[in-house]
């Protein structure tokens, strides 16, 4: 029996982006007779069961709030000893640790090194699979990078599912327009005064039925600010659900929409998961070639200022220059569907799609300063990661020289004893 464990201890969006890996493993488990197990933070366990009904979901204490005293922290953690013991008692064929997190690696370390994939730990030594080492090298030049996070995780396995089979085709579902308010990083979102004309334009372009505002309770004030800036026909069509849905409720709300307007958020990934078209605004540290909506049929407007994508943790010393083009009057005209409208300088519009490597964003409007570099890199990565399916993709020889290292070539990849054996 094939038995797989995926450790996804990050946030909502990451959980949705794990679908390609999980579906691929699910397919293998079904073919061979087996099980897929998924470990997530307690707060995501219910949602995980809903998103991945074929998986056995385990809740672990991965997230907490700062300010706990030592005893309370100990109580939280030790509540899960049984869950950890249950995992440790199972013989997994492969254990995928997807997060560069000491907690994830600590769980992985309960299993032999030869079954660990992704981030790993054995005898106290943390390490990364070759794919992850490569990804860290790519991250030194994020601007030229071009592989979706979901595909990095999927390629930790030898038999990833075809990218086009991961999410349903993006199609209007009849429930009007959804608006996701700011994600966790406010700098990556548009302020209400910029968002309002864009929402209005899309509302009208879609026939003006209903607008649903989505977000946590922390974003309720932002929703009210947006409502104040909308003219009355739009405002009257608005249903403000910020702070009023739990995670399954959020899935319910999103899954019936015609389109979701969003920055790079967990809601965006849920929309893609449900096959709801997204219109996504990517700026600041968000880079759609890394975390864009997965699958074909979404629109992305990416800020391509020379400083983008920036480091999330570093303060901006450019006066949020990447945000300005989203306030340009040209953008609503583009959103309205005018073929003649010029996209404001500093933005590129992409249509999402899939190829042999995974999900990608194809430029449809605006000047894409990183296209050539990205295409070369994807060609290289396709040959490297997509196996026989990608073997015939030409180009990308320069990145091969840049990113292949002696250790890749000479040393056996961690935990893959069969490599090089006949």
């Amino acid at each position, binding site marked *: 029996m094939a038995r797989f464990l995926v450790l996804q201890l990050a946030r909502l969006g990451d959980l949705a982006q794990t679908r390609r890996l999980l579906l691929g493993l699910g397919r293998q488990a079904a073919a061979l007779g087996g099980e897929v197990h998924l470990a997530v933070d307690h707060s995501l366990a219910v949602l995980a069961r809903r998103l991945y009904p074929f998986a056995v979901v385990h809740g672990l204490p991965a997230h907490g709030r700062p300010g706990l005293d030592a005893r309370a922290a100990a109580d939280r953690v030790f509540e899960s000893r049984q869950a950890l013991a249950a995992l440790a008692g199972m013989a997994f064929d492969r254990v995928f640790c997807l997060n560069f997190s000491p907690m994830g690696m600590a769980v992985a370390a309960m299993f032999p090194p030869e079954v660990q994939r992704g981030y790993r730990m054995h005898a106290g030594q943390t390490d990364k699979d070759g794919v992850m080492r490569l990804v860290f090298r790519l991250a030194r030049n994020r601007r030229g990078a071009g592989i979706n996070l979901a595909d990095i995780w999927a390629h930790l396995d030898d*038999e990833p599912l075809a990218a086009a089979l991961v999410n349903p085709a993006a199609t209007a579902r009849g429930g009007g327009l959804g608006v996701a308010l700011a994600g966790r990083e406010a700098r990556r979102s548009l302020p209400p005064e910029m968002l309002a004309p864009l929402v209005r334009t899309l509302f009208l372009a879609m026939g003006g039925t209903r607008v649903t505002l989505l977000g946590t309770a922390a974003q309720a004030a932002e929703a009210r600010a947006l409502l104040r800036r909308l003219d009355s026909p739009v405002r009257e069509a608005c249903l403000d659900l910020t702070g009023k849905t739990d995670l399954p409720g959020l899935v319910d709300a999103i899954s019936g929409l015609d389109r979701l307007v969003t920055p790079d958020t967990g809601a965006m990934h849920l929309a893609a998961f449900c096959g709801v078209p997204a219109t996504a605004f990517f700026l600041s540290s968000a880079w759609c070639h890394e975390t864009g909506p997965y699958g074909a049929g979404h629109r992305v407007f990416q800020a391509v200022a020379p400083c983008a994508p920036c480091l999330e943790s570093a303060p901006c010393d450019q006066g949020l220059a990447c945000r300005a083009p989203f306030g340009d009057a040209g953008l609503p005209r583009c959103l309205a569907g005018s073929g003649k409208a010029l996209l404001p300088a500093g933005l590129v519009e992409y249509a999402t799609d899939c190829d042999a490597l995974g999900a990608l964003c194809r430029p449809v409007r605006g000047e894409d300063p990183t296209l050539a570099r990205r295409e070369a890199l994807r060609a290289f990565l396709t040959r*490297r990661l997509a196996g026989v399916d990608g*073997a015939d993709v030409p180009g990308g020889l320069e990145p091969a020289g840049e990113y292949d290292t002696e250790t890749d070539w000479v040393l056996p990849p961690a935990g893959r004893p069969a490599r090089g054996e*006949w």
Partner: protein
Amino acid sequence: MDGRRGLRILVVLPMYGGSLPIGRHCASALSGLGHLVETFEAPAFYGAFEALKTLRVTSDRLEYLENSYLQVISQAICAKVETFGPDLVLALAQAPLSRQALKRLRRDGVATAMWFVEDFRLFTYWEAFAPYYDVFAVIQKDPFFERLAAVGQQNVLYLPLAADPAVHRPLELTPVERRLYGARTSFMGAGYANRRVAFAQLLDFGLAIFGSDWDGDAVLGPRLRLDGRRVTTEESVKIFNAADVNLNLHSSVSTQSLVSGGDFVNPRTFELAMCGAFQLVDRRGLMDELFSEDELARFGSVEELKERLGHFLAHPEERAGYAARARARALGEHTYARRMERLLDFTAGRIAGWPAGAGGEGALAGLPEPLRGELSALLRELSLPADVSFDDLIVAVRSRQGLLTPLETSLLFLDEWKKQYVK
């Protein structure tokens, strides 16, 4: 040896894996052809990499240390080249030669060759390393040739795998060995995904499995022999000899297509043939030019495998016919010695002025007559040709294991005298 003088060849082995025994067979074949061969024993350095993984440092630091140590090994190879002065450095896939070291060897005029005994579609690192070798020998044809040309490698040689008749040979097994290694249907090799799924359908055919990486397979577990450990080359020869039918299914990490239908032919095919052992092998794109249909019994699907397996288990006389014909073909055409000859011929044809002139006068020249007789015996013992140069003889003497004889010590003395006192 053909008209070419005896060459000095440094064989750089990989640290681990399937190309390691192939490297050793190459070194042995080159010696057998009369060349002076040294091997860079990379496996001896592998323990340090494993030790690095026990440091408990950050993963970034670990990667840095691995890179740094690899550079040290590369420098060790360069130092070995300086001292040994080879005409050719032959590296096997995964040999620990950095690009920096390869650039240095090229700058110093040392010819380098890589025998890339891997699937280019799966191990794509060749893209970054192939341009730095003077000759690149491969086990696949187009489009690999075309791809190598695109990265600037023009000296590409198709060099299929082979077997060593001194190692892979028919054996008379003892009853104990037959019990230990024998089976009606046998497979020796690593537990790749396609094999696991395919072999699970062969339990009715007296299947036994030898080799590593089969852990955790509940269906095949009871058929696993020798505790699923990696078997030595010597043991594999006994396994081949002890089976009625040897299965040979080329590996794949995919379970979507169990018989992958790829192009290159694996070493097991040649080894089984050279042993005179019967095999059922999956069809490969490049197989027909290596063996004919009446030399190797083939299958193209698991269904066909089952059908043919049942047939051949019931017809030992047919098995014997196939095995004898395959062995004759392998002995005639598929030895490592033939491959090495081909590689050297190709290198000579592609690198102008290679090999450079002989390294000094013949070893016997200028020696007193009684010594010449004694030295001739030593040359035979060292498998060196009669016209070996004095310098090559000294290299061979220095690399001998154990205690030196008075003659050998005298030769080392003479070498020093030549350096210090002879004009």
